[in-house]
């Protein structure tokens, strides 16, 4: 099935020539179910340049979370390759940070200890005590959780817990941030808050981000590029380059928004 693949002509020529931080080639994942094999996604080709924020947009069940998990090395692909700075990878990598939809904080550890947990593992460069402490403090500062270092996860609200999870990932100074619908479990106001926070962090650190979302506004607010996925099997349908400088106002992107909505409704009615 041939799908239109449109990209705006504002590609940065510098980005096109350098080795992409992340490159995904012809990736496929299948699950065995009782009804037979189910193809989660197939023929995925995707490149993310250093400093770029790419939003993978799609309806539920289009395999976008599964794709992210495969890129993160949390599950193996059945075909295709994932390259990190040109190097083929099949397992989770220390320079890749993942934030899940639920914060996944370890309930017996405080916020500070949860952050330290990610820093003290063997695959991470070993830090001295003061270094460790300053890394934790910096991460807590970044997400605005000052004063909650010694709190336990059950004492935090949903938004605060997700901030702590973000801090745990940021403290490891990942080159690539993979976000799997990180704010979708939060209420609208908290979500907006977290999006602003993420925007600030991205701007500060020039982080490269690949983010899965089903929220068009979130994608438009954060993404430099929005990639729409179709389902059954999950595949890339169309992508848009968003060139407007951040922070953006939602209403200023009405045209793109309408285009995405149009494409999305087409995608939903496609025969499978």
């Amino acid at each position, binding site marked *: 099935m041939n799908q239109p693949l449109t990209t705006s002509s504002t590609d940065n020529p510098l980005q096109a020539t350098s080795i992409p931080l992340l490159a995904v080639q012809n990736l496929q994942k299948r699950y065995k179910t009782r009804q037979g094999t189910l193809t989660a996604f197939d023929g995925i080709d995707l490149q993310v340049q250093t400093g770029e924020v790419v939003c993978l947009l799609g309806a539920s069940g289009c395999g976008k979370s599964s794709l992210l998990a495969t890129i*993160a090395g*949390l599950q193996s692909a059945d075909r295709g390759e994932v390259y990190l700075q040109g190097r083929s990878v099949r*397992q*989770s*990598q*220390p320079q890749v940070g*993942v934030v*899940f939809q*639920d914060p*996944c904080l*370890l*309930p*017996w*550890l405080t916020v500070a200890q949860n952050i330290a*947990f*990610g820093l003290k*593992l*063997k*695959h*991470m460069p070993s830090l001295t005590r003061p270094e460790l402490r300053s890394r934790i403090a910096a991460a807590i500062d970044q997400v605005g959780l000052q004063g909650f270092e010694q709190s*336990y996860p*059950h004492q935090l609200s949903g938004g605060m817990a997700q901030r702590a999870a973000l801090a745990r990932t940021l403290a*490891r100074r990942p080159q690539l941030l993979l976000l799997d619908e990180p704010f979708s479990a939060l209420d609208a106001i908290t979500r907006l808050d977290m999006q602003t926070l993420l925007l600030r962090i991205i701007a500060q650190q020039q982080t490269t981000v690949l983010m899965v979302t089903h929220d068009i506004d979130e994608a438009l607010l954060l993404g430099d590029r929005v990639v729409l996925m179709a389902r059954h099997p999950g595949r890339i349908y169309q992508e848009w380059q968003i060139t407007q400088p951040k922070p953006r106002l939602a209403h200023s992107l009405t045209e793109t928004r309408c285009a995405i909505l149009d494409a999305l409704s087409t995608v939903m009615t496609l025969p499978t």
Partner: protein
Amino acid sequence: MSSTLPSSSVLRFKLPLPLWGLMGGLGLWWLFTTPLWHTDPIVADFSPERTIAALVQLFSHGVIFPHITTSLRRVFVGLFAALVIGVPLGVLLGLSRPLEQATSALFQFIRMISPLSWMPLAVMALGIGDLPVYFLLTVAAIWPFILNTSAGVVAVNPRWLLLSRSLCATRWETISQVIIPAIVPHLLTGMRLAIGIIWIVLVPAEMLGVSAGLGYYILDTRDRLAYSELMAVILIIGLIGYGLDSVLRFAYQRWTHQG
């Protein structure tokens, strides 16, 4: 004109509910044994009045202390041995489904044998003294550890394991820093059950070939026909058992941040 006297509901002494049960038990005990209307001197010896007098005497003369410490030492040695053997075994069983399936029939079979049945064997193999008691207590307490630990490992939140993988933790780091802390509530439950069983098995285990301990002392009081002392020792056994259980219950609540 309103009354300045406090209302009757303020004056009424409020007893916590658990105390009501204890009071009820004490009342029944007293009813069936009190020398006030029981003329049989043996029955009267079992009465709360005489038991409490004997209890005070046991403590004031310090006769009972070496027996308590001996028994507690045995409990902790047995508990420790069961923990050291049972928890790693439980973790292994929880991690490996084939191993769990291979051993489940064997373990269920052995578990159903009363630990006390091993007593003659234990004495034959380990001689007389503390060793066979340690052995019996360990055999009794190991099952709650194995079963609760493996159930705990199986029940570990898969999201935490996924997180651990996404952070590139090694297998050992995942076991020591995610799985072990995650199963602590299960472990504490296992320990509570283990202490309950150990405390029950201890008394009969101490009735064989040892010369100290609460079980030994029960037989000793029987032989001396000191029935009020016997009842006093029974009370002590109950109290210590309750105390041990309360400590673990408290630890459980602290760990899981409940209550």
